[in-house]
C-alpha cells in the first residue's frame, strides 16, 4: 500500500509518519508541503492512499483533489473546519481531527482497508464547495500549469459535454464539473443560470434584449452575448430585482 502525506506543517506530517512506521503494509512514498507538490507526487507515484490537510498555501486540499483525474482514497487530516467536517461525514473514507491518537489513526487505516473501493471523493468536493470559504475562486488546470481565477473575473460559464467552459478576462478554461455544481456554488456571487447551457455573472450585464418568442439575449460589458431561456429570465429578474 503506497501512501503520500500532504500537509504544510512539518510536525503534523511527522505524526502521521510516526504512526505509519508501525504498520507493516504501508509504504510512505512521498511527503508534500502543498497542493502543487501533492499533484506532482500523486501523478508520479500513483499512491493507494493519501493523508490530506485542508488549509494549505496556494490551493487547499479540496482544490487539489478537483484537479486530479482519478483521485486515490483520501483520509483528511484537519484541525477545524465546520464545513469540511460536514463534507467528510457524508462521503469521505475517514477524517482525522488534529490532534488525533494512534488508536484513532489505526481505525482510519482499517476503515480504508475494509471499504477500499467506496470512497466518494467527488462528493466530498461538491459538498465542500458550498462552503463560503471555498467559493471566491476557481482553480483550473491550464496545460501543465495550475491557474487560480478570482470569481469576479469570470464572465460566464458554458456547458461543453462533460466539461464546463469558464470564460474569463484571460481567456477560457475547461473544468470537469457539472453545470449544476457551479450553479449551486456560485449562487452567492450573483451568478445565475440563465439557460440550460449558460451561467452568467450578473454584475457584467449591461443590456437585456427581447430575442425570439419567450427568449432574451444578454449583452455583457465585455461584449459577449448570452442567450436566456424563459425560466432563466424568471430567475434573472428575481436576482436583479426587476
Amino acid at each position, binding site marked *: 500500500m503506497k501512501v503520500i502525506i500532504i500537509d*504544510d*506543517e*512539518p*510536525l*503534523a506530517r*511527522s*505524526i502521521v509518519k*510516526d504512526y505509519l512506521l508501525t504498520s507493516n503494509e504501508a509504504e510512505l512514498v512521498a511527503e508534500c*508541503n*502543498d497542493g*502543487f507538490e501533492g499533484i506532482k507526487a500523486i501523478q508520479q507515484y500513483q499512491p493507494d492512499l493519501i493523508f490530506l490537510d485542508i*488549509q494549505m*498555501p*496556494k*490551493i487547499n486540499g479540496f482544490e487539489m483533489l478537483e484537479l486530479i483525474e482519478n483521485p486515490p482514497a483520501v483520509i483528511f487530516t484537519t*484541525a*477545524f*473546519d465546520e464545513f469540511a467536517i460536514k463534507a467528510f461525514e457524508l462521503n469521505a473514507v475517514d477524517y482525522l*481531527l*488534529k*490532534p488525533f491518537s494512534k488508536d484513532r489513526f489505526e481505525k482510519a487505516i482499517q476503515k480504508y482497508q475494509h471499504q477500499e473501493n467506496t470512497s466518494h471523493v467527488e462528493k466530498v468536493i461538491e459538498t465542500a464547495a458550498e462552503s463560503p470559504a471555498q467559493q471566491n*475562486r476557481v482553480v483550473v488546470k491550464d496545460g501543465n500549469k495550475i491557474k*487560480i481565477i*478570482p470569481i469576479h473575473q469570470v464572465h460566464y460559464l458554458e456547458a461543453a459535454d462533460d466539461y464546463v467552459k469558464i470564460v474569463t478576462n484571460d481567456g477560457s478554461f475547461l473544468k470537469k464539473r457539472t453545470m449544476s455544481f457551479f450553479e449551486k456554488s456560485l449562487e452567492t456571487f450573483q451568478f445565475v443560470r440563465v439557460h440550460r447551457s449558460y451561467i452568467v455573472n450578473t454584475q457584467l450585464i449591461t443590456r437585456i434584449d427581447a430575442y425570439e418568442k419567450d427568449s432574451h439575449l444578454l449583452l455583457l460589458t465585455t461584449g459577449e452575448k448570452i442567450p436566456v431561456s424563459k425560466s432563466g429570465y424568471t430567475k434573472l429578474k428575481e436576482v436583479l430585482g426587476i
Partner: protein
Amino acid sequence: MKSILSDKRLQVFFATWWMLCMAIQFLILKQINIDDKHALLDTLASIILLATGSFFISNNMKYYLPRKEKYWYILIISITVGFLWFLAQRAAMWMILKDGDAYINFIHTTSAIRFGAGFLLLSSMSMFSLMWYGQQEYKEMANRKTETEQLSKEAELFKLRRQFQPHFLFNSLNSISALTSSDPEKARHMIYQLSDFLRGTLKKDEQQWIPLEEEIQYLQLYLEIEKVRFGHRLQTEIIIPGEAMQFKLPALILQPVVENAIKFGLYDTTGDVLIKLQTKVENGNLNISVQNPFDPETAHPAKGTGFGLRSIQRRLFLLFARNDLLKTTIENNIFTTTIVVPQMLQPVDPVATEKERK
C-alpha cells in the same frame, strides 16, 4: 424622515379627499340656490386654499414633530391656520368678484359656518399627519434598535471566536503531540507558551490601555508558537526604539494585525517568510507598521482590508473618531499595514491635581 406626500397611496388618498370636499361644498351651495359661476368660484378658492394650509401643517411636522402637549399643538395650529385661511379666502373672493357683488355679502353672513368647517377639516388633517409621522418615527426607531442589536451580537460572536481561535489552538496542540515523542523538552516548553498566550487572550480587557512592551511580549508568544509549527520558514524581525516601549496602546490591537500578516504571509505562501514589525514615534504618536510578503497569484489584498483589519479600523474609529489611522500599502508583493495610535492624555486623577494646586 420621509415626507407624508412621498407615499403613492397617500397622494391618491389626499387627492380623492379634497375632490370630495369640493363636491360637497359645491352641492351645498347649489342647494341654497347659488348660481353655477359663484358656487364654482367659491368652492375652488375655499378648497384650494384649505388644501394649501393643510399641506403647510403636514409639511411642518416633517421638521418639527410635537412631543409634549401635542394635542394642544393640533388645536392651536388648526385655529391659527383656520383663521388665516378664512381671511385669505375672503380676500381672494373679494379680489375676484370686485366690489358691489352681492355674493360678498353672502360670504360675510356665512362666516361662522365657513370658519367652523375649515377648522374641522384642518384639525382632522393635522391629526392624521401627526399620527402618520409618529408611526413613521416609531418604525425608524425600531429599525435602528434591531440594527444595533444585530451589530452588537455580531461583535460579541466575533470576539468569542477570536478568543478561541480554534484553528490555531488545535494545530498547536497537534504540534505538541508530535513533539512529545521527538523532543519532549520542546513539547513542554510549547505547552507553557500556549498556556501563557491563551491566558493573555482571556485576561485582557479591550478597554484597557497597556504599554507597548506588554503587547510585544504577548505577540512574541504567538510568534514563537507559529515558529514551532512552521519551523525555519517563519522569520520575524521586530524593531522598536527604546523610547517607544513605554508608549501605550489599546490592548489586543496589534496581535490581530500580525495575525492577518501571518495568514496571508505564511499560511498562503510556500518558502521562507519574513514578517517585519517596526515602530516609530511620530509627532508624539505611536506609529506601528507590519510587513508581510504575499502570493499575488492567490491573495488579492488590494480589495478591501479583510475582516481582521476592518474590525481593527472600526475599533480605532470608535476610540479616536478617525478613519485614517489604519493604512495598507502594497509594493513588490510586500503588504504593509500601518496603524497610528494617538497618545491620548492619560486619565487625570482629580485628587492628585487638587493636591498639586495646593
